[in-house]
């Protein structure tokens, strides 16, 4: 890597910061300027993410370790770019671009500071994926949470404020748990750098091990709240159902932040090399993930409108991921990563689509809350008018695509993700290698198949109610700029299906790297800050 390209690693953090600071110079009357800055920054982030992914793909271990201020690793702050973080960066950028373009049609006018908060959220997300120490993980995590509080309330209205109150309270309490966990780990090991922690944990004396595991457990709770593991997930469906559509779409990646941190920290700190603490808490992850999956599938059946259905689909997705990660097998993790990408794209598209489908049936009160008073007339009037048959066809096709993706039926990528996951579960010793299948794997298989079935039932039930309705309740007109992001996200999953081979190779290599953290530890600690 050239010296100039090396600094690209910090660009996903710096660019949104500069962009959102720049936006503060313009007040609400210059909304177009703000929107332009936001679009430019988000698309630039997408380009940067692609560049970083290519760099990460080429390198054998972590592609780049960026020392802020040039301080050597365990003392200074590090950003680490490897395959996993590059993948998450790209996923964030794709989802962000889609929901931003969608919001430009009208949602960004529904409240103040949407664009600035959006950029701060991106900064928090990117920072969380890149950071190499627990201290900055806390800072970036709080940053993304603070921006998400503002975005969850975007558009105001009593339903949003009510759900937002719970969301904020739950997450503030979880942040306190985060601090307790971090400080317990620091008390035992004397470091907060993740690589340094991984190197020191095998040597922790037996009498301190309980304190360390307690700290890791408390820290884990904080992330599992974010990932929505049962029974820590009751805040999630109401918040996601109440949030405005573009915000809900970008929130689809926020539960994956929790999953990402669990994957990264758990395998780094408590992987096979952690001595007496190896795979600490694996049973909890597996059983908790399966409980989440069970709760999610009951919820999808019980959901009476599409927004709640989407909220529970988020739970199904994160339950699947947590349980799969808990198995601690390389092949299972690889399949889980494929499922993560596919389900995040599908959920993002679904959240956007729901708003388009339900717009025609929205009663006046909902619309009124969404728009700022002085602009309400302008927005509401333009949108009235029935949809053309072509629009209905596109909407219905997209809905079908989402249903296939979320329930994991062929031919789209949801099926490939689930198939890879199940194949790996049933062949613990490699393809055709035999070996006993653990009972937990059978349980997960049954739950996964069941969740596909219930998602399908719920989606067809609510889809029939949405599309096959008498004409007086027909769908409203939608604009090109609103349907395009949905179609684009679905096309990406189609591309993921067609290019499943290369994608799967990349993800398997990612899983192998995550399961063998020695090279990660070595490359971080060998940086001397020169």
């Amino acid at each position, binding site marked *: 890597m050239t010296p100039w390209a090396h600094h690209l690693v910090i660009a996903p953090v710096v660019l949104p910061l500069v962009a959102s600071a720049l936006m503060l110079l313009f007040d609400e009357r210059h909304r177009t300027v703000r929107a332009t800055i936001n679009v430019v920054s988000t698309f630039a982030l997408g380009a940067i993410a692609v560049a970083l992914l290519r760099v990460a793909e080429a390198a054998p271990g972590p592609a780049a370790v960026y020392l802020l201020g040039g301080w050597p690793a365990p003392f200074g702050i590090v950003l680490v770019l490897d395959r996993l973080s590059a993948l998450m960066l790209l996923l964030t950028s794709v989802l962000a671009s889609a929901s931003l373009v969608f919001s430009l049609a009208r949602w960004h006018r529904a409240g103040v500071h949407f664009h600035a908060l959006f950029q701060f959220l991106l900064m928090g997300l990117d920072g969380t994926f890149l950071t190499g120490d627990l201290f900055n993980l806390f800072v970036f995590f709080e940053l993304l949470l603070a921006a998400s509080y503002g975005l969850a309330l975007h558009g105001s209205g009593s339903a949003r404020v009510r759900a*937002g109150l719970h969301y904020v309270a739950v997450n503030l309490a979880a942040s306190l748990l985060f*601090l307790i966990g971090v400080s317990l780990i620091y008390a035992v090991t004397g470091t907060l750098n993740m690589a340094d922690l991984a190197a020191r944990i095998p040597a922790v004396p037996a009498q301190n091990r309980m304190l360390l595991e307690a700290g890791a457990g408390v820290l884990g709770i904080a992330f599992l709240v974010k990932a929505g593991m049962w029974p820590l997930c009751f805040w999630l469906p109401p918040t996601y159902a109440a949030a405005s559509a573009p915000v809900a779409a970008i929130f689809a990646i926020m539960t994956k932040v929790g999953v990402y941190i669990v994957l990264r920290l758990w395998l780094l700190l408590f992987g096979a090399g952690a001595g007496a603490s190896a795979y600490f808490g694996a049973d909890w992850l597996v059983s908790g993930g399966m409980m989440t999956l069970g709760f999610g599938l009951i919820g999808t059946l019980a959901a009476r409108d599409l927004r709640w259905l989407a909220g529970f689909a988020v739970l199904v997705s994160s339950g699947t991921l947590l349980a799969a990660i808990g198995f601690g097998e390389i092949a299972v993790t690889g399949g889980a990563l494929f499922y993560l990408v596919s389900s995040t794209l599908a959920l993002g598209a679904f959240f956007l689509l729901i708003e388009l489908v339900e717009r025609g049936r929205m009663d006046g009160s909902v619309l009124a809350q969404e728009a700022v008073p002085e602009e309400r007339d302008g927005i509401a009037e333009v949108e009235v008018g029935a949809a053309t048959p072509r629009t209905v066809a596109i909407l219905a096709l997209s809905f079908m695509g989402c249903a296939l993706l979320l329930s994991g039926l062929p031919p789209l990528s949801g099926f490939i993700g689930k198939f890879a996951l199940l194949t790996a579960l049933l062949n613990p010793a490699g393809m055709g290698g035999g070996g006993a299948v653990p009972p937990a794997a059978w349980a997960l298989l049954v739950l996964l198949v069941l969740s596909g079935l219930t998602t399908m039932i719920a989606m067809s039930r609510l889809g029939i109610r949405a599309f096959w309705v008498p004409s007086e309740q027909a769908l409203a007109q939608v604009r090109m700029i609103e349907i395009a992001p949905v179609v684009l996200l679905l096309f990406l999953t189609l591309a993921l299906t067609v290019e499943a081979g290369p994608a799967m190779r990349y993800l398997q290599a990612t899983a192998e790297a995550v399961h063998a953290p020695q090279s990660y530890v070595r490359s971080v600690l060998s940086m001397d800050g020169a």
Partner: protein
Amino acid sequence: MELILALGIGVLAGSGVWLLLRPRSFQVIVGLSLLSYAVNLFILAVGRLRVGAPPVLQAHAVADPVPQALILTAIVIGFATTALFLVVLLAARGLTGTDHVDGEEREP
């Protein structure tokens, strides 16, 4: 010193948790504040308690600076989020007409 600090953390955390579980939104916010004080003191305690030790300027027997930095960050962030929560609380009070955390009074 240890006893006083431990008692202080315990009392703060206990009252914080109790208030957090109360139905009024103002009690929740006070509970969260008390809890964050308890957590800040706890972080100070895990960096080992030393009275009168200098900061890192000298080579031996120094006070650990990392927990202090962590506390400072936590205080700043906690301050901001508490302010934001207050705004949400006021908005909820205005929109729903009650200060119950669920936005509606439970029937007696």
